């Protein structure tokens, strides 16, 4: 028994600090072991919708569908949604259709682009003019080649 008492006595000083170090260390080790699991569960970055060629085919909208000013339609490119329309100035425009507020897909409504979820409204330049959206829509460069439309990122 004296032995037991003695051990406690010996350990009493500085035991708290010792435990803190050990605790911190154990957490560090556990984090190291958990790292592979975290990396395993981390999603891969989605593939570039424009692919290696820097442009993506527009599906669901043909050049003929947007031949005249005021015509427009929802379509898709590389697995994402977009709106394509011909503006009053006769220029072909496209935006990624993901609303900057909550991610619903917006709709082209002739004079504006409107989101049916929370009433977010954008003008035909893609600027957020009413409702909750915090940012303009992402614009896309759109070109017609034969019977197909292609989009590419605006920056390039």
């Amino acid at each position, binding site marked *: 028994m004296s032995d037991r008492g003695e051990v406690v006595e010996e350990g009493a000083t500085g035991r708290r600090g010792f435990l803190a170090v050990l605790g911190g260390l154990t957490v560090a080790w556990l984090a190291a072991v958990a790292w*592979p*699991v975290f*990396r*395993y*569960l*981390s999603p*891969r970055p989605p593939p570039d919708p424009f692919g290696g060629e820097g442009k993506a085919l527009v599906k669901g909208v043909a050049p003929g569908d947007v031949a005249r000013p005021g015509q427009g339609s929802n379509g898709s490119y590389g697995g994402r949604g977009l709106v394509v329309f011909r503006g009053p100035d006769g220029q072909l425009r496209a935006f990624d259709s993901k609303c900057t507020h909550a991610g619903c897909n917006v709709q082209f409504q002739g004079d504006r682009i409107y989101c049916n979820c929370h009433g977010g409204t954008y003008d035909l330049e893609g600027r957020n003019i009413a409702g909750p959206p915090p940012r303009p829509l992402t614009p896309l460069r759109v070109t017609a080649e034969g019977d197909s439309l292609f989009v590419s990122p605006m920056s390039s």
Partner: protein
Amino acid sequence: MSSDLSPIPPEADRRLPPPDTRAGRATRWLLARYPVWPIVEHLAEKRVPRHRHSVWYAMGGIVLFFFTVQVITGILLMVYYDPGQPWQSVQRIVMEVPYGALIRSIHHWAANLMILAIFLHLFSTFFLKAYRPPREMTWVTGLMLAGLSMAFGFSGYLLPWDDLSFFATRVGISEIEKAPLIGGLLADLIRGGPDVTVATINRFFPLHVVVLPLVVLGLITLHLTFVQIQGVSEPDSFRAMPPEKRKYHKFFGEFLVAEVPVWLALGVLLVALAALAPRALDPEANPAASAPEGIKPEWYFLSQYQALKLFPGSLELLGQALLALVPLAMVLVPFWDRSIPADARGRLATRMGIAGLAGLVAMTLWGFLS
């Protein structure tokens, strides 16, 4: 209000942390609402005898450790596994997902080691005669768990849909098909058609990840509850000692704590095996191609496979019937060998067990070598 709360038993008051600490307050708060003190006390009293066969008491915990690893790695694999594209999704796990190959290999090795640990647990229980009354139902649930674990292995083996798994499953189910009367029907139900196809995966997948886990979890709960209620069995040699010579470990606090480093070592062993001998993914199953050379079932089915080879042609039914007798006999042992200390029946059971074990090992080795 407060009259609905249970009073704290005085012995609990003595043994819980002091009431002015956070832990003391929390435990008392809980105990006032859920008066489980008798159960806590029962568990705290639980002890494990210390003798030269004590090492075998660790086996159940080891099986449980491997099962836990299987649940965790299984859930992780399910995140990326797609029964609609079985081989492609496993290939993605192995080739693209970070550490996917590691997790898949651990799942593979833990499965094998779990079945090995189950065998050790089963045979040590058998030879220490822990199945005798009043532990018959613990034994029977244990046997059921052993059988279900092999079903786990069989169903999981098909999921990657590679060359080996396809043919192994085809051969395995064809054994069921040969059973009289209901064999054909049963095989079709399992396969989801006359042959092993992707439809079979759509059956094996829910079996492997939903049905079997639920049943096994339930049975494990039952099995462990039985053990908690009755305590671990003491072999005859230990009972024969005078009471003052019998030594015990506390189950919680001593026995279980001492087992943790063993689990840690097994965990590292799993990583080592996964690192040094990772599980390969063979080419995608091609139902039209010839079976790969030297194809054999997993080692835990090898003895049955080899035994059935001894009964060619029309004798095969006889072989199946004889093989079916083995589990039946094992279930019945506790109802026949009941005497404590062991009598002539007990000694006969031991000899039969040795013969059975020798047969199992010999058949498995033969299967490996042939």
